[in-house]
C-alpha cells in the first residue's frame, strides 16, 4: 500500500492521478497507523511551511515520519519540511536532512517564485536511474535547499545552485513536482515505486 499523507490543503489529487497512470493506487491518509504500515509513503506539500508543520504536529505525524524505515518521498514543500529549519515562517522542520531552507533573494532581476521547467543535473541516487542529465522538471517554489552531502540532483536559478533532490537512506525528496513533470516525472515516480 502506498500512503499519500494528507494534512491540509493542497493539490494531492495530481499525485494520486500520477500513481494511477503508473498502475498504483495511493491511499490518502493522515492516520499514523496506516502510514506506519504502508510499503511506501509520499509526502506532498503545497502551501506555507509553518502552518504545514503545525498541521503535521497536530496529528502527531512529525514523529511518525521520522521513525519510518520504508521508502519515503517528500515533494516540494514536503522535501523542505524534511530539513532542519526553514526561513519560511522561521519553521523548525523534521530534521531528516540537516539543512537550512533559504529564500531566493529578491530584487536581483529574477522572478520569484522560481516557476516553470528547469534542467536538473548531477543526477545520483535511486530516483534518477532512468533520467538523462539536463532533463527538464517542473518547479514552483520561493525557498530552496542549498547543496548538501545528501543532494541527489542539482538545479540553478538566479545564480544559485540548489538541491533539486535529496536522498538519505530510505528518505528521498524532490524540489520539483514529479507528478507535473511529464515523462521525466513519471520515470522518477516509477523509480521510487521500485525502490527497496
Amino acid at each position, binding site marked *: 500500500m502506498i500512503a499519500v499523507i494528507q494534512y491540509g490543503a493542497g493539490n494531492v489529487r495530481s499525485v494520486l*492521478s500520477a500513481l494511477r497512470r503508473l498502475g498504483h493506487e495511493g491511499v490518502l491518509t493522515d492516520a499514523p497507523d496506516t502510514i506506519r504500515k504502508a510499503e511506501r509513503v509520499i509526502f506532498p506539500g*503545497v*502551501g*506555507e511551511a509553518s502552518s504545514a508543520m503545525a498541521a503535521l504536529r497536530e496529528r502527531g505525524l512529525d514523529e511518525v515520519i521520522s521513525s519510518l524505515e520504508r521508502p519515503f518521498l517528500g515533494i516540494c514543500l514536503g522535501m523542505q519540511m524534511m530539513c532542519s529549519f526553514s526561513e519560511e515562517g522561521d519553521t523548525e522542520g523534521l530534521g531528516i536532512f540537516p539543512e537550512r531552507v533559504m529564500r531566493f533573494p529578491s530584487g536581483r532581476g529574477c522572478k520569484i517564485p522560481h516557476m*516553470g521547467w528547469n534542467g536538473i543535473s548531477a543526477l545520483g541516487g535511486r530516483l534518477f536511474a532512468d533520467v538523462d542529465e539536463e532533463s*527538464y522538471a517542473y518547479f514552483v517554489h520561493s525557498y530552496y535547499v542549498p547543496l548538501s552531502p545528501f543532494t541527489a540532483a542539482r538545479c540553478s536559478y538566479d545564480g544559485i545552485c540548489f538541491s533539486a533532490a535529496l536522498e538519505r537512506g530510505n528518505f528521498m525528496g524532490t524540489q520539483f513536482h514529479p507528478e507535473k513533470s*511529464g515523462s521525466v516525472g513519471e520515470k522518477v515516480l516509477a523509480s521510487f515505486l521500485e525502490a527497496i
Partner: protein
Amino acid sequence: MLTRRIIPCLDVKDGRTVKGVNFVGLRDAGSALELAAYYSEHGADELVFLDITATVENRGTMVRLVQDVADRISIPFTVGGGIRTKEDVGRLLSAGADKISINSAAVRNPDMISGFARLFGSQCVVLAIDARRNPGMPSGFETIIDGGRTATGRDALLWAQEAERLGAGEVLLTSMDADGTRNGFDVDLTAVISGNIGIPVIASGGAGCEEHFRDILREGKADAALAASVFHFREIGIPELKAYLRSEGIPVRI
C-alpha cells in the same frame, strides 16, 4: 536554465472547446480533454482553461473537466472564469487544478487576491489583466474588465504591482489591442509590466507566427507566451515553434 513556457489556451463551454478547432487525429476535436491531452503530449509546458460561460449552473461541469484533465495529463494547468469565492477556488484546486486565474472580480475586490493567497498559497493565484493602450495612463496602458467592455481608469502597471503586493503569484497579461489581430503580441505592454514586477508574466493576445513568440519572449521580457487559435488551427506546431525559439537562443524545454 529556467525555460520560457509555451501555453495553449482552451476556451471551454460545457466541457467543449469553443474557439474553432481544426484537428486531424483527435477522436473528438471539440473535446477539451482530448485537446488537452494532445497538447501535453506535443510540447506544451502548461495549459490554461477559461470557462467562458462561468455560470453557477456550469460550475459542476467545469469541476468534472478539471478532474478528468488532472487524471489524464501530467503538466500543470490553470483554470479561470467566474471564480469569486474561496469555495470556488477550493473546489477547483482539490479537483486537480494547479492554479486559478481571476480578473474582473479581483479589480472590484482586490482583497480577494490576498485572501486566496493566504488560504491556498501565492503560487496558485494568477491575476489576469486585460490592458489597452491609453496615453492618459502613467504606463500608457489601462486595465479593462468585463471581457473588454468596461474601462476601469486604473493604470495596468500600478494594478499589476498592487496585485504582486497582495500576493498574486503570476500575471496573465492580455493586450486588448493585439488580441485577435494575429499581428503580434504587444511587446511594449508586456515589457513595461514584466520589467517592473517581480512575479512571472504570461503574455497573451496577437500571436500569428513564430517570430511573434521570439519577440515577446525576448524584447517583451515575457516569462511565458500564451495563444489559442494559431495552435488550435495547427498553423503553428509547438514542437516546431520550440525548435525555432531554441535556434534563436531562447531557452525552451524540448
